């Protein structure tokens, strides 16, 4: 469940990530807990709070320069940030719901474990595509690329889980 913390802004994770990770270790996994974390991530992105610890950890000026370089290099468009974030959170949420549903119906398995692990990276892939302007591919090409990419990511983590189990 700690992978959901990847949905939070980096400054937030540096400030509170270790504390929340320790807290999650003592909380039983549930859909309610997952939804609470996703809602918290949306809030942390929509209403970032200034705290002395977060500002020190982030290095505000350096981050601004780095962020500008990242925008210039990748074509990431700030005005599409909300759409990108919505894809990120939406896919993560759907993955959690599917994973928990499958887990409760058939029990924990390598397939659901791989789904939980790959969800963030699939969400990152789609969010990255949708956050660009102009978008690199449109229509059917985008659907094929994203579907294939998602399947490859899931396949990779499934393969890693299978290999890890045999070792």
């Amino acid at each position, binding site marked *: 469940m700690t992978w959901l913390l990847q949905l939070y802004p980096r400054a*937030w994770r540096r400030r509170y990530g*270790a*504390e929340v990770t320790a807290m999650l270790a*003592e909380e039983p996994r549930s859909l309610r807990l997952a939804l609470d*974390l996703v*809602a918290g991530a949306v809030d942390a992105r929509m209403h970032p709070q*200034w705290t002395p610890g977060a500002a020190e950890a982030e290095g505000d000026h350096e981050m601004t320069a780095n962020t500008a370089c990242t925008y210039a290099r990748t074509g990431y468009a700030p005005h599409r940030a909300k759409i990108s974030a919505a894809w990120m959170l939406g896919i993560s949420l759907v993955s959690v719901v599917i994973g928990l549903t499958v887990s409760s119906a058939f029990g924990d398995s390598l397939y659901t474990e791989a789904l939980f692990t790959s969800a963030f990276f699939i969400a990152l892939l789609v969010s990255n595509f949708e956050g660009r302007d102009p978008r690199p591919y449109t229509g059917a090409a985008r659907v094929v690329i994203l579907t294939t990419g998602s399947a490859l990511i899931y396949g990779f983590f499934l393969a890693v889980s299978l290999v890890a189990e045999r070792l």
Partner: protein
Amino acid sequence: MSRQQTGLDDFGRFAEPALLILISLADGSKHGYAITDDIEQVTGVRHGPGTLYGALARLESRGFIEPVKSTDRRNPYRLTDLGRAALRTRLAALEAVTRAGQRRLVASEG
């Protein structure tokens, strides 16, 4: 956002969890998990980490609480003087509302 604001009025859905955190910290410093347990004992409601840390971040950013130096990953927090004053103000307001409600209820029944 000014750090000198003295109320929880702009906390939105985090106003109630924030008040409960202030109440929990009124008798001494606690880390997140202990705060959650304490709130559950007092109210019967267990807040998830997303809600708890949404409220904690707001309280810390306004200077109502501050972290206590600790080597533990579970960092404890304590009330600041500003937080104690905000809690007093809030509890006094709630007390006035409670008194008014009870007075009207008694009047309507009598």
